[in-house]
């Protein structure tokens, strides 16, 4: 069952409620739906990200490319959100701004209590170092470091991290810890990247096409690793993809097109990855 409820307002959620609603939903689908929606409406605030009127314009030579147009966007604690859109729809730009890798041309981005859109470069560096994890399409591992060392690279500069062993265990790579990237398959490399991103216990994980370079089966293993991190650690996750099939695994699906958010849908139920095909 995969019922969708169109949402016109922004809905804050807390992890426990989502957890309860998820199980209620399994037991009493219709009742749970209505309960879930009500809870959303009642519980305001408590954002991870709150972006308002976000625009981004790139100058490419003499041509101006508008990547984002007046976007309002929210991400809530513990949420698994899928950001869907064709290439050029502005989803990567949005993710880069949320991750402190880029700054908006206009508009504001609030991370918890911090105004990201006004932060300077060293504040953004500190923000990336402490609060946010990234997973990219091409893994971006350091080739000269083993899996364990790639994770340690981050834990060494974090305040209260997991051990590299814990993080790699979470993605099922306990037995490949001393391998170099060149000795790992694509899926394994991506899972190392996930372990590296979650090891610092970030509040949010931003994933840009994490399965883009992988075959279906490997892709699923990687997504399962993300799903597990979300459920067990409670990290909020935003996954960018152009693969609509993946949308079913999220709590919420945001659809982008031509630099705007065109649809914001709540999945009443997160589909098990075993059932998803593409």
């Amino acid at each position, binding site marked *: 069952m995969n019922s969708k409820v169109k949402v016109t307002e922004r809905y804050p959620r807390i992890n426990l409620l989502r957890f309860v609603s998820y199980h209620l939903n399994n037991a009493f689908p219709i009742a749970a739906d209505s309960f879930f929606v009500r809870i959303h409406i009642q519980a305001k605030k408590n954002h991870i990200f709150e972006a308002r009127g976000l625009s981004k314009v790139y100058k490419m030579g003499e041509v101006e490319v508008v990547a984002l147009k007046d976007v309002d966007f929210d991400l809530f604690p513990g949420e698994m959100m899928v950001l869907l859109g064709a290439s050029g729809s502005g989803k990567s730009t949005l993710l880069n701004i949320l*991750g402190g*890798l880029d700054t908006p041309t206009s508009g504001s981005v609030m991370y918890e209590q911090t105004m990201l859109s006004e932060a300077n*470069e*060293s504040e953004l*560096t*500190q*923000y*990336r*170092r*402490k609060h946010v994890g*990234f997973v990219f399409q091409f893994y*971006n*591992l*350091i*080739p*000269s*470091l083993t899996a364990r*060392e*790639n994770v*340690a*690279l*981050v834990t*060494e*500069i974090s305040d209260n991290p997991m051990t590299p062993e814990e993080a790699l265990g979470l993605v099922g790579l306990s037995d490949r810890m001393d391998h*170099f*990237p*060149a000795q790992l398959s694509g899926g394994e490399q991506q899972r190392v990247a996930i372990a*590296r991103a979650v090891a610092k216990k970030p509040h949010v994980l931003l994933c840009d096409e994490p399965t883009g370079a992988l075959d279906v089966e490997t892709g699923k293993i990687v997504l399962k690793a993300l799903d597990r991190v979300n459920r067990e650690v409670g990290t909020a996750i935003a996954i960018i993809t152009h693969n609509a099939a993946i949308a079913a695994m999220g709590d919420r699906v945001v659809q982008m097109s031509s630099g705007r958010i065109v649809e914001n849908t709540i999945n009443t139920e997160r589909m098990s990855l075993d059932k998803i095909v593409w």
Partner: protein
Amino acid sequence: MFSIAAVTATAIMTVLTMRGTYESLYSARESYYQTSRFPDVWASLERAPESVKRQLQQIEGVSAVDTRITFASTLDLENRTSPAIGRFYSASPPDEMLGALHLRSGRWVKDSDRDKVIVSEKFALANQFANGDTLRAIINGRLRHLEIIATAISPEHSYAVPQGSLFPDDEQYGVLWMSPKAMGAAYNMEGAFNEVALTISSRVDIRFVQSEIDRILKPYGGLGSYTRKTQMSNLFLESELNSNKQTGTIIPGIFLAVVAFLLNIVLRRLISTQRQEIAVLKAFGYTNMDVGLFYLKFALSAVMAGALVGMVSGVWLGGLMIDVYRDYFDFPDLTYHLSPSLLVFAVTVSAIAAVVGALGGVRGAIRLPPAEAMRPQSPARFTKGLLEHFSFFKRLPSAARMVVRNIERRPLKTIFSALGVAFSVAILVIGLFLFDGMDYMMDLQFNVAQREDLTVAFNRPLPERIRYDLGRIEGVNRIEFNRMVPVRITKGALKREMAITGRKVGDELNRIVHSDGTIIPLPLHGLVVSQILADQLHIKRGDLVQVEILEGERRNESVPIVGIVDDFLGMNAYMHIESLNDLVRGPRLVTGANLSVMGDNQDEVAKTLSTIPMVASVSSPRRGFELFEKQMSEGLMVGMFFLIGFSSIISVAVIYNGARISLSERGRELASLRVLGFSKKEVSVLLFSEQAVITLCSIPIGWYIGKVLAGRPFPRWPLKAIDSPM
């Protein structure tokens, strides 16, 4: 590519400057020697009648003979506090003279000219003499007023160095020519000569001619003939030419090796970033040859651009160098002259360096199959390196491990980068070592070995009674006499003409000093010789050598070698003066003295000394030291400028390229680190750590290479000890 061009430019500049000046000096010298009929052999003797000239002319292979009278005299110059030394020669008629004078002004001396002289141009310039001026000379004990009628340069005195000195001293040393008649009258040498110069035909064995000359001159106090190899002026010129030739070969060699290395890494990198373009070209049907040639041309154009800059600056610098040489060597037509063959050579070697350097990268581009080239390069392979077996590695943070593994992964690149930097360190070490070494040597020579204030040479061997004449001069503190006796030392088939210096035990002013600074006490019996002589004659301590005295009874005796001293200057043999007197037989005589002077009376004492008829010359070692310091401080600045320039160009090129390549190879990796929250500073540290580690490792290697290269024996000037021992 800029750094590659810069390194090439330096290489080519050095080739054109050093080899260019070498060729210019060489050809100027050759043409000067040829037009002036520069002699092949010289011989000094006590006195022989002119009739002996015929005998010499009859030696097989001798083509011309020029007999001369020559003496050293004190010149009493106005405005000079200390006396100058003049080396007087009789001027044979211009068409007979070997090593002919080249008049710069004035006229030739006539037979009837009694008190007229031609003076060496540099001496005239340094003392602002003009033709018509008069100078005072003490000739054979009598004061004479000599009128300057001409200035000239002589190929035998291109590099005019006073006896026992190392540097030209144009203010206080001049060469003067008088008519043979005037010279004969002044020195009681009418119808006789005491020096002869000869040219020989190239077909004859010079050693045969020398032995004939020695045989003929033996009864006339012959001191042994010598060739161009040991003729002072030619010797200095030769060593300068050789050093230019060497510098013009070694330095560009190092630089071109660096060029090849840099091209190799830059091109490999370029090709790996342009994989896709190569693939597209190949897919469109460009052949491997086309692609390979493209990159080869790319390399060649960078190198040729550098070579062009190097040529222009080399020609400019070569011109400047020749200007400097003009101050040292008297050549009539010394100009910087660039031979086409040198240009071709420069272009060829840079092209070879470009091709050798580019080959590795170009081969990679040729081998790349189009389909594979379209795919992005797979992640670099890393394995655990040697250092990881050590426990310290486990304690390193991940960032440091990245540095170590990156260095270990490409051992050849690391080694060559380190070698590049090491060579630039070595260039500095060699240069600084030479400066330091010279300083040390001079300090030892003038502060430990030659501590006298004044060195006096007598115009003939005198009894030690002269002590009373010298001791009477006010200000003289201490007098130590010595005796120099011309000898021929023979060991087996090897022989060498030189002088034995006789001294007393306990002499304090002039001592025998080993290169490490230890003072060697003079033994009562036997000979102490310089290491350089020991090497030439294959002598070791305890050997017996034949010593033939080249004066008086010309006795020949065997003498034991009791010590070998590694001294810096010249080729010396020392003996206790009493033993030397015994060896020579005859009366106990002295030929010179070392004096210490109280307070700052040195100039006055020197002036008084020069008026004593028996005194041939008075000189001050300190003046030699000052000349040296002056010369060094001028040369030092220029030398340092070039050394620092050369070594910076290499290190900057190697390190800059290394960092650029790392940045380009690892751009993605470094960007990932920024995403992970590493600050710009942390990422820069990571990028530069690799270069820093390589540089730090290469510095001690550079020290070592520098030490090995500089560790050759000090450049010694094998001063011919008997340069007319009058």
